[in-house]
């Protein structure tokens, strides 16, 4: 079974530039998550999708961050414009709908903003 796929793995941009991250969850997983992980810390949830609906985006900085999950499968997370403090690893995860099941994580995208 293929795992969660993310691209790109690494991205270096200058501040004020836009950037987008892509995630393909495990087939059949209805729930998709985007996390932010700063160096030396645990991941923090940005947004959770149930199918194509964003059901928890309370931690997403909406002034510059946006996300979409068209057709309830792949998802894209965008930052526009990027700031120096956005340098971090962006992780995507997926799980089966409901219950308290484990989440399966992708390898992440490491973003460096110069």
């Amino acid at each position, binding site marked *: 079974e293929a795992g969660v796929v993310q691209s790109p793995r690494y991205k270096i941009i200058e501040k004020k530039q836009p950037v987008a991250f892509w995630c393909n969850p495990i087939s059949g997983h209805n729930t998709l998550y985007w996390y932010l992980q700063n160096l030396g810390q*645990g991941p923090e949830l940005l947004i*959770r999708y149930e199918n194509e609906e964003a059901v928890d985006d309370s931690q997403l900085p909406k002034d510059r961050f946006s996300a979409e999950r068209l057709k309830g499968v792949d998802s894209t997370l965008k930052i526009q414009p990027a700031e120096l403090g956005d340098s971090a690893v962006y992780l995507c995860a997926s799980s089966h709908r409901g219950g308290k099941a484990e*989440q399966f994580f992708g390898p992440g995208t490491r973003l460096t903003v110069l």
Partner: protein
Amino acid sequence: SQQGEEDPQALSIQEGENATMNCSYKTSINNLQWYRQNSGRGLVHLILIRSNEREKHSGRLRVTLDTSKKSSSLLITASRAADTASYFCATVAIKAAGNKLTFGGGTRVLVKP
């Protein structure tokens, strides 16, 4: 914000020794999960323990949960160099919507050959 505090922040042991790390959390939980993260990679689920369970085993892993103290421990027995990684506890609160995980800051484990 991170709910959990993990102790120690870093741990260095020799191959074959046991490694123990602890996690404390703040709110009442439905379950607690442990994840491993190798350098530059995503997290891998290790084990889930429910709030009504006190101990759980999986291979060389042993997890305990004390809900009265809001704490959990992860024991890795007979460690191997491949166990070198960061280990995170994550909680699902009782009233959490969906499967929202709240992670601790992690314990970085180095197993020296």
